[in-house]
């Protein structure tokens, strides 16, 4: 029983960790709190709906292409013209992009919630020592591990990764050394697009539906998870997401039925306690301004 709860908690934690990485990546490199990230997830999920009659991997591929293209386009059309604007202006712009994407989808191809039948193989489960693990949980864990590992490898071992880290620390100096600022920023949006696509794929498999508004909840979870873990620290953000998901899973499994409705109140109270003790996040090395 306890092991089963732990497996379910880790499965949900991995889903949440995926949500936090893309948000923390853009915040770390650009200082941009991108509220349109939820809509990029929605675009990825929409691709899964569009290609629901094709083999699963075709939908996944389409989700990555759709999310990356839209993510890069938002950078090119909305954020690049505001490159030198202050963070608040950028944040407001991201709100505008979020609402615009949502409205366009609602008015055109996604006026109401659409069902996406779950892939049969994802709903299958295996039982090991009495613990039931669904294929979707395994896929989520593997995807989270591969993406997080791949991103860590990219950041640490490739010239692009070094340029991304340098730009995150001091964009002006990086540019003065010849780092192509626009390319680096576009790459960050493309990587965030891949992360959003992965999140979209997992969410569609879990929920079995897509809607124009579906990005809001994952966005909030992603932001809270990233803040808890350490906003500009990718490992911290992933840890924050993982813990948030595990906390949600734990409360779902242990709260009495009549208190389940207050699950989020308990969870976010715990988040507030964490932030009072470590306002800079769990793994962030630097202190944030507290006054």
């Amino acid at each position: 029983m306890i092991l089963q709860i732990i497996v379910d908690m880790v499965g949900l934690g991995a889903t949440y960790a995926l949500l936090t990485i893309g948000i923390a990546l853009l915040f770390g490199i650009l200082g941009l709190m991108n509220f349109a990230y939820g809509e990029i997830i929605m675009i990825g999920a929409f691709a899964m709906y569009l290609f629901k009659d094709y083999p699963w991997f075709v939908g996944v591929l389409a989700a990555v292409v759709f999310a990356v293209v839209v993510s890069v386009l938002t950078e090119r059309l909305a954020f690049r013209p505001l490159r030198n604007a202050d963070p608040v202006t950028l944040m407001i712009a991201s709100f505008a992009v979020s609402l615009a994407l949502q409205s366009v989808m609602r008015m055109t191809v996604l006026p109401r919630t659409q069902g996406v039948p779950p892939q049969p193989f994802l709903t299958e489960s295996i039982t090991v020592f009495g613990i039931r693990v669904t294929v979707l949980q395994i896929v989520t864990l593997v995807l989270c591990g591969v993406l997080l590992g791949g991103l860590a490898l990219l950041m640490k071992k490739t010239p692009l990764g070094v340029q991304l880290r340098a730009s995150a620390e001091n964009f002006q100096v990086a540019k003065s050394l010849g780092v192509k600022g626009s390319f680096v920023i576009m790459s960050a949006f493309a990587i965030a697009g891949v992360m959003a696509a992965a999140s979209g794929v997992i969410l569609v498999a879990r929920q079995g539906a897509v809607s124009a508004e579906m990005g809001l909840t994952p966005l909030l979870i992603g932001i809270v998870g990233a803040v808890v873990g350490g906003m500009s620290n990718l490992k911290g953000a992933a840890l924050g997401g993982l813990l948030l998901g595990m906390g949600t899973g734990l409360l779902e499994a242990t709260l009495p039925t009549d208190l389940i409705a207050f699950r989020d109140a308990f969870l976010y109270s715990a988040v507030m306690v964490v932030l009072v003790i470590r306002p800079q996040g769990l793994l962030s090395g630097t202190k944030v301004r507290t006054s």
Partner: protein
Amino acid sequence: MLLEINELFVRYGKSVMALQGASLEVGEGELVSLIGQNGAGKSTLLKSIVGIAPVHSGSITYDGAAVTDKKFSVIKNRIAYVPEDRGVFSSLTVGENLRLGAVSRKDTRNIDADIERELARFPILGEYWSRGASLLSGGEQQQLAIARALLLRPKLLLLDEPTLGLAPIIVDLIFDVIEQLRDEGVTILLVEQNAVRSIEVSDRSYVMQAPGKILGSGDAKELAANEAVVDYLGFSPTGLLGDSE
């Protein structure tokens, strides 16, 4: 002249005029220093060359091209800039920092040899190659910043207060390197508060007074003959003549 600055005015916001008609010339292969007290406008002048200070009026030409032109590329024209705060990336290792200096170069085959050359010039960087740059001392960070700038194979090297806050032994090392680079043919514009050492090593020096006005220029002898410069510096550079001639 490789670099010519004429009647340069730089304004921050609507009221703060950081440079007021500064003019300066640097010939190819020359080591020219710009000295003056804090807030005189020296760093602003360097920043205006690399395009990070807003030029209000006046001109900056480099090798005949207008630096203020939007199409002018500081990197393509091989102008390397070492800012006052060194601009070392603390989240990167020494090696990663160093390699970033060559990020814009097309001749990738020669980069490793150039890195070897800089490691021979600054051996401490080789020792700490895999160490996080945040763990370096101020002097080591300055060596890293200069070595990284040199990986651009600069035609013009702009150094902003490279000895600020460093121990005397490191100050000696930095000035030795500056002289060495001049001997290698690198054109250098050095901004410094250490007037004595700067006038000593430079071919010519400019003395700048707040707010952004050039008080006088020339070699040690010419500076010594300028009463306003001697008053401002608080010493006569005549004592440095033996070194500068």
